[in-house]
């Protein structure tokens, strides 16, 4: 875990409301699924840092993708190259790639794609067959889909308005896909990041086909470093585990999906 002040190299709107930011950052090794905590400005509003998944962190350059929706991310979108931001990271655990993994199925919606990018890089490097069901309201929500294809990932786009790929819900298309191809419960696995309701559905569908699911949970975080106990996820056994430290990636069966998160 490092704490550093980081120069913004670029902060570009790559699609309506979606921003890709590159920061100058000391070299660090990180794992797919890990995140950083970023202070979006140097005032007390917003007070807290924002968690951002690591899209990439190589050659002293840290990349993130975010959607400007609320106070923190809208503020972040105003930062210009040359300005500096305070960063802490890498934080949290990571997606696990089990030995002998057959086919990796990734399901995401919108900005949830970010932590799946380094995972896709690791999977394709190991020559593991990887499919991405990529959902969004419209074609502009499927950001960086070409980067996934370039890695050799089979991308299946799904949009609510039918502007790209199949029209409808990404989870419905995932289920149709599973019905047709019959994944192998012994060797295949599901990886997901996105809205809570989507991930829950993904976990349920994967379960029907006997597949395990690794989910990256999005919770409110105050510190990101394990000391506030604000970010916890309720486990099936009733205990609360810190998403910033023991998470954000969990196996779907560990989680009490009925617990309120937001």
């Amino acid at each position, binding site marked *: *875990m*490092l*704490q550093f002040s980081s120069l913004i190299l670029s902060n570009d709107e790559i699609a309506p409301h979606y921003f890709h930011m590159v920061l100058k950052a000391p070299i660090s090794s990180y794992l797919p699924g890990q995140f950083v905590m970023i*202070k979006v400005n140097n005032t*007390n*509003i*917003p*007070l*807290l*840092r924002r968690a951002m998944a690591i899209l990439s962190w190589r050659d002293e350059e840290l990349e993130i993708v975010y959607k400007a929706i609320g106070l923190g991310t809208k503020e972040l979108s105003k930062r210009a190259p040359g300005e500096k931001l*305070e960063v*802490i990271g890498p934080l949290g655990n990571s997606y696990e790639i089990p030995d002998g993994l057959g086919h990796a199925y990734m399901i995401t919606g919108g900005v949830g794609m970010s932590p799946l990018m380094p995972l896709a890089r690791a999977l394709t490097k190991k020559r593991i067959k990887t499919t991405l069901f990529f959902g969004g309201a419209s074609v502009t929500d499927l950001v960086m889909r070409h980067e996934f294809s370039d890695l050799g990932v089979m991308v299946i786009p799904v949009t609510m308005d039918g502007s790209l790929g199949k029209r409808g819900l990404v989870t419905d298309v995932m289920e149709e896909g599973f019905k047709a191809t019959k994944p192998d419960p012994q060797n295949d696995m599901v990886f997901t990041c996105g809205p809570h309701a989507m991930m829950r559905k993904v976990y349920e569908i994967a379960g029907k086909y006997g597949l395990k699911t690794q989910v990256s949970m999005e*919770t*409110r*975080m*105050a*510190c*990101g*470093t*394990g*000391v*506030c*106990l*604000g*970010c*916890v*996820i*309720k486990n099936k056994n*009733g*205990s*609360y585990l810190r998403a910033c*430290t023991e998470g954000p990636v969990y196996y779907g069966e560990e989680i009490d999906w009925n*617990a*309120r*998160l*937001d």
Partner: protein
Amino acid sequence: MPDSTKRHPEPQQRHPEPKAKDLIIQIGNQSFTNPIFMASGTFGYGDDLTDLVDYSKLGAIITKGISLEPRAGNPTPRIIETSAGLINSIGLQNIGLKAFLKDKAPLYPKLKTRVIANIFGTSIEEFNELTDAMNRVEALAGIELNISCPNVKKGGVEFGVDPKATTEVVKNARSRTKLPIIVKLTPNVTDMTIIAKAAADEGADALTVSNTFLSMRIDVLKRRPSLATTFGGISGPAILPIILRQVWQVSSAVKIPVIASGGIMTTHDALEYLMAGATAIQIGTATYINPKAAHEILAGIKDYLTSNNLTLQDLIGIAKEG
């Protein structure tokens, strides 16, 4: 020609570097190298931020509240941000006394700082049992009695709002330990000085002013309270001016040291509290945002003392003079 520079008198050292001892503070029978403590619930049990924090620069670490039995804590969501503040309803999730003694306490003799145990009971008996156990922990520098957590339904805040209950808790603890006893007060009372005096009269060594204010927010989209428990305690810069007033009042009402806790983010904030009469300060929410806040504030206080040729003792309560 005579060398005129040599005749010049030696420039007077008007601003000597404050000697390290200037920053030493005494609470009960223990001394601390500086007046900056890490607040309970914002630094875990002291072993999470080892990568980022230089422990030798901390006056003390105060542990997360410890109860007799482990506590799962409150349902989620437990935190919500507000303008310059944070509302939490963690509900004292903690590993319990047994695991604390086994897994955490053995780390403390090796730390480069001192550790104060924050304890929390739902009855006098529980407080007593916890106090007895802490007496046996090697290298412990004190006990902070948490009679003020707003996030537990039973106990906690009930002691802290009642002077008689406060008297009982402190009297019992005092009879059982020579370690410094710090009583952490609640701001959720009309007049904090009444409780403060009750604690001081029973032999408390210091008072922490204070815990968080009961508060809430509503999620307008979902039309329900933002926290699962509806209410939580607010911390952070938003509460500073109110706690500052309380530190001023309490430090005027009792003779024992007051430790300020409320919204300290910067050196400036810390100086205000010291000038209002606090002997020491706790860094809480600031650590979430900047784990190095305590270091920066320590350096800032040193600078301030140096450039104003003051000692820490001079500074404490200076705003009340004249």
